[in-house]
């Protein structure tokens, strides 16, 4: 969606409608006719704004849907799904799904096993670098709003708090897009959320608890002890 087009289109439609009404009142068919032409432009621009998307974005979205199915199957086949732990390892630049508590120092990207506990580590180097350019300035709430409200548009508000020495982030007033993303097993919103937190705190991030309602998504994370420079 391109909101500037939607706004411009709606303004043009309103202006055209005003002129149309004026044309009807003063009984001028030419004014009504020109207003109809202008309203056509307004409708076209509004539709462009609502349905706009980059062509590459559509193709990449389909690719990421296929990848997500593959990742979900891998995690299921490894028996990790269900009571798995999720951790973002800052130095290793990897998102770790594991059955047990595996220290980040033992993890390499890919599929592996540590002390008979299987794990899968997904690389997040690309995500870290793209989030770096969006989150260079501001406090944590500003960074989260920039990513999740302005860019991803998965929610309309964010709160950050501390509970039992853990950080709690809540995305409130979820959009339909946000709800659809959060429902998936891989959940890219969670992925981006803990990556943003890892970038902000320069620490490993472990997901402790998650809760989702129709209105909000709440995640409680534990910060790693070590701060990486």
């Amino acid at each position, binding site marked *: 969606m391109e909101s500037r*087009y939607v706004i411009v289109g709606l303004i043009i439609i309103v202006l055209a409608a005003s002129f149309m009404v004026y044309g009807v009142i003063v009984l001028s*068919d*030419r004014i*009504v*006719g*020109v207003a*109809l*032409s*202008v309203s*056509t*432009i307004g*409708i*076209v*621009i509004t*539709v*462009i704004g609502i*349905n*706009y*998307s*980059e*062509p590459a974005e559509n193709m990449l979205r389909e690719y990421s849907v296929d990848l997500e199915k593959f990742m979900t199957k891998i995690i299921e086949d490894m028996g990790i799904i269900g009571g798995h732990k999720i951790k973002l390892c800052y130095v290793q630049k990897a998102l770790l799904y594991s059955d047990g508590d595996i220290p980040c120092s033992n993890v390499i990207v890919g599929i592996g096993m540590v002390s008979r506990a299987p794990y899968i580590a997904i690389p997040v180097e690309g995500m870290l670098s793209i989030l770096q350019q969006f989150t260079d300035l501001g406090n944590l709430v500003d960074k989260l709003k920039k990513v999740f409200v302005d860019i991803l548009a998965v929610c309309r508000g964010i709160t950050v708090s501390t509970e039992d020495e853990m950080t709690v982030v809540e995305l409130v007033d979820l959009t339909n897009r946000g709800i659809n993303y959060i429902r998936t097993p891989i959940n890219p919103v969670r992925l981006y959320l803990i990556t943003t937190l890892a970038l902000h705190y320069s620490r490993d991030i472990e997901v402790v608890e998650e809760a989702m309602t129709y209105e909000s998504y709440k995640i409680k994370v534990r910060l790693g002890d070590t701060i990486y420079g």
Partner: protein
Amino acid sequence: MAKIDRGVVLLTLFIMLFSILLVILDESRPDAYLSVSILLYFIYTAIDSTIKRYVNTKFLDIGLVLIFIAIVAFRVIDILR
């Protein structure tokens, strides 16, 4: 200027230009302005595919075609009467 911006601006200019021409020609039928605008939209998007590359215009196209058909049908019935 982004490609789609150029497409939208050109389409707007064409429609406004032809609307002004119709005013100069003393055209007093409002549906003539609307049908010319719709025709210009289809002609422009057929020649320059920039807008369609970035936007799914399927429902817009269907709606505009239906409006155009309604205008033509109304005029034909008017003439036959």
